[in-house]
């Protein structure tokens, strides 16, 4: 070993190798700043013109003891010069800041992949905490990887010495050193990160200076140090992306902004009643900072109060929104029924997580579809839409607001933990160019009845308290089809039940016909998905088609009602495969609606699908 740089191999560097795409994972202790590292790398990668997708993976514990395997925090990014659909099945590069990170993440690294480790953290204490008997850096167990073993700790201390920081603070810059090195690996520009560090530490310039010094040192190390096999770095060209202004956006942000945009398009103020819960809280947090957009947020005492406050707000003329995850939405069931029967607009966002019960709060799943479509007492229909990706949250949120206000109905918007936390590049839309759908409140007392319906949409009139002359009473008991007064009349109950059902079914006429993402509109197999499985399904179907298989990808945004051509469309395929991160919930809906012999591909491990899993299933079922 040379002093300070623990590179084992020698030789001249080769030229940068051009790749189509790469998957990198930064993994370290919760305190190691891996999420920041990841998001900075994401930004630099976006600026370099790559397409990308990310997957932040937090520990369940707030701040697990240092060095433990359950305290490992990671950030994965897949980027390339072609279009990128998932955060990647397997890793090309793994950065492991400590033994625990290596222990947890190594199994995802490809043979021959680049493995960057901070050898400075591979001391006996850390090895033991990670559950290693020996030191993997020394026992040859990593032979099948390209190991870059560096004492990042020491090099960082060295790099930031000039700033006079304490050892503890100086070591906090390790992540920037590493980031600098990976910037070198992929030939990324450091300027945006430098700017951001300056802004972030505006009040403590010595910290900015230290972090920047570490970043630059890491990069310089890449430029100058010897690398295994003479490794000279990669280059990944620009992706063929639609031109325009881009940013990276997380599901939480896009969803919040979509709701704000939707409310504005409807001409309403937005009221958000919520109660914190993983992974739904980001929505509450983002919206809490948007007061200037006419947004009111209310942290209620529980989920029931949260939805009830939103119902009250809608009743008073705002757009009521409530947001939670599975267990919290379970508590809202009774109140959702009230919104259905009083026919008030309401958007209910469910950021799904692994269940049942408390389940695995930080892991992703799609197992609340039953709850969304069926989970209430009585015949209580509503509309359900689902987002497929972080950026798609913006559009689906607007669609949810449109349906809620146009049809005077609660709408459930399904997203999940993966979408809420992941980020992706987003072609920023021009909000002014979106067709508005302004609400009209009833003001004319002449002939007014609160349950008069629009003959086309079947939506009832919306008359706000405070309006002269329109005083009326509504409630959860069955209502007369006109006056809204309590009615025990059997015919009226049948009529209102039918009206509620037909109103929601009628939405099918107001949503786009189902299109096919990839493949033909008939054939041997359709793979039907919804939500965050979009990426892996899409890539898997594309791959399978390249293998010559006759398979198409259909992805649903509207879960209820379903697009009116969907039944016919599905009947055009010999087989229908429905991959879901649940035990087969959309499957039930499709089979019952269309009597198509659809089959499920079900994964309930808290982890997103891998492309390969879906591809294998397509292959197997087409052969089978």
């Amino acid at each position, binding site marked *: 070993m040379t002093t300070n740089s623990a590179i084992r191999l020698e030789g001249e560097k080769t030229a940068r190798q051009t790749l189509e795409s790469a998957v990198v994972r930064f993994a370290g202790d919760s305190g190691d700043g891996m999420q920041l590292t990841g998001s900075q790398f994401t930004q630099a990668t976006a600026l370099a013109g790559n397409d990308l997708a990310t997957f932040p993976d937090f520990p369940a514990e707030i701040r697990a003891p240092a060095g433990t395997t359950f305290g490992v925090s990671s950030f994965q990014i897949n980027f390339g010069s072609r279009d990128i659909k998932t955060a990647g099945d397997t890793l090309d590069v793994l950065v492991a800041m400590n033994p625990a990170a290596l222990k947890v993440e190594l199994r995802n690294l490809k043979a021959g992949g680049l493995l960057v480790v901070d050898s400075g953290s591979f001391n006996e204490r850390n090895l033991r905490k990670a559950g290693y008997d020996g030191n993997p850096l020394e026992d040859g167990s990593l032979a099948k990887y390209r190991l870059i073993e560096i004492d990042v700790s020491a090099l960082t201390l060295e790099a930031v010495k000039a700033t006079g920081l304490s050892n503890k603070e100086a070591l906090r810059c390790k992540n920037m050193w590493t980031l600098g090195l990976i910037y070198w690996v992929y030939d990324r520009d450091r300027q945006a990160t430098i700017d951001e560090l300056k802004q972030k530490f505006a009040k403590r310039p010595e910290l900015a200076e230290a972090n920047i010094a570490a970043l630059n040192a890491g990069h310089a190390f890449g430029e100058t140090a010897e690398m295994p096999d003479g490794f000279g770095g990669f280059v990944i060209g620009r992706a063929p992306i639609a031109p325009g202004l881009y940013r990276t956006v997380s599901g939480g942000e896009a969803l919040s902004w979509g709701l704000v945009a939707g409310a504005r398009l409807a001409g309403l*103020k937005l009221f958000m009643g919520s109660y914190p819960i993983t992974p739904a809280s980001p929505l509450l947090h983002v919206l809490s900072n948007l007061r200037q957009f006419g947004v009111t947020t*209310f942290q209620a005492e529980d989920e029931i109060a949260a939805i009830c406050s939103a*119902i009250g707000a809608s009743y008073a003329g705002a757009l009521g929104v409530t947001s939670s995850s599975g267990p919290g939405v379970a508590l809202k069931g009774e109140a959702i029924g009230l919104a259905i029967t009083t026919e008030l607009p309401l958007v209910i966002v469910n950021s799904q997580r692994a269940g049942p019960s408390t389940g695995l709060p930080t892991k992703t799943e799609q197992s609340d579809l039953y709850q969304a479509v069926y989970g209430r007492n009585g015949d209580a229909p509503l509309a359900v839409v689902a987002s497929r990706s972080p950026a798609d949250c913006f559009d689906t949120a607007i669609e949810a607001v449109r349906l809620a206000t146009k049809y005077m109905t609660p709408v459930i918007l399904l997203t999940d933990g993966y979408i809420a936390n992941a980020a992706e590049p987003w072609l920023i839309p021009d909000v002014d160019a979106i067709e508005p759908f302004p609400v009209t409140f009833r003001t004319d007392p002449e002939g007014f009845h*609160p349950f008069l319906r629009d003959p086309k949409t079947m939506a009832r009139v919306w008359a706000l*308290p405070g309006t002269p*002359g329109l005083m*009326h*009473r509504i*409630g*959860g008991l069955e209502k007369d089809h006109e006056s809204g007064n309590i009615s025990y009349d059997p015919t009226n109950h049948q009529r209102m039940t039918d009206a509620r059902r037909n109103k929601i079914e009628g939405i099918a006429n107001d949503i786009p016909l189902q299109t096919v993402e990839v493949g033909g509109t008939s054939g041997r197999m359709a793979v039907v998905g919804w939500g965050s499985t979009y990426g892996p399904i899409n890539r898997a179907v594309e791959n399978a088609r390249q293998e010559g298989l006759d398979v198409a990808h259909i992805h649903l945004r509207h879960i209820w009602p379903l697009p009116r051509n969907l039944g016919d469309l599905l009947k055009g395929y010999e087989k229908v495969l429905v991959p879901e991160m649940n035990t087969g919930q959309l499957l039930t809906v499709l089979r019952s609606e269309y009597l198509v012999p659809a089959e499920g591909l079900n994964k309930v491990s808290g982890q997103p699908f891998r492309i390969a899993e879906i591809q294998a299933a397509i292959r197997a079922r087409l052969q089978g």
Partner: protein
Amino acid sequence: MNVVAPAAEKLSAKDFASDQEVRWCPGCGDYAILKSVQRSLADLGARPDNTVFVSGIGCAARFPYYMSTYGFHTIHGRAPAIATGIKLANPDLDVWVVSGDGDALSIGGNHLLHLVRRNINVQFLLFNNEIYGLTKGQYSPTSRIGTRSPSTPQGSIEAPVTAIQFALGAGGRFVARSADTLQKHLPDVLRRAYEHKGCSFVEILQNCIVYNDGAFDGYTDRSVAADAQLHVEHGKPLLFGKDRNRGLRLDPKNLCLEVVTVGENGVSAADILVHDETNRVLAGMLAAMETPMPVALGVLYCNPAPAYEIELREQGEAARAKSPSADLNALLRKGHTWTV
């Protein structure tokens, strides 16, 4: 649906009555409360079109149907939360919540706690008949120990919650008590509640003639009323009785109240405690009085603090003042962007 012209002229109690037939049991105490409320609203110059009655489920909770105002009959226990949303979305509305002892203190106890604590500016009327009326007579959280009911054939074994003590424990800033039959007293209390800016909590003792008849006779029956009711008034001595010569004295050693008679055993008028409605400790002691002490009626506690929705509105205004343009396109473009 009622069309009431935005009238400048004074409305009468009748103008606050809806066209719906009142469907409580004949003789139910709710009728008298309904009348009091309708009369009070008229006297206070409230506007039907700016008034909302919100309720949960129960006999009491049918109240909104009988008012010609806006009304929302919601679900069991949740009226405080729905009222909160209404008030936050439109702070200009006059919002009244009507609830029963089960609705408010059994299933809805948590929402009530937080409504009171947050100090949302609504009038919360708790019709306390110490029983579940609508579901046919089960004991409630305010039923006295030993109450025999369909679900407690051997008698209930739970200490009842004292509504007023609960409201004080929740941090209530306006806490009052009256009774269905007190047709002069109740409107006075309602007026005070209406004028209070913040959450006004009013317990109204109400007779359920079917399932708990006479629960409050010990206080409200004419024959005993004078000796069994203590009408508190801010700044006035806490006196009661036919001859208004009985009163409350503080025993400072034991920190408790005792009933004394002025002119007896050397008790003088100066020994009698004077009601201070801003004193929470006194309010708590008054609330806790039980037979053979008189029941304390009136505004036990009133000590205003800023209402939640007003503070919230101010925060909104501050945010808007800071970024007056509220340009959504700009928001979407904040932070790092790049052009392809």
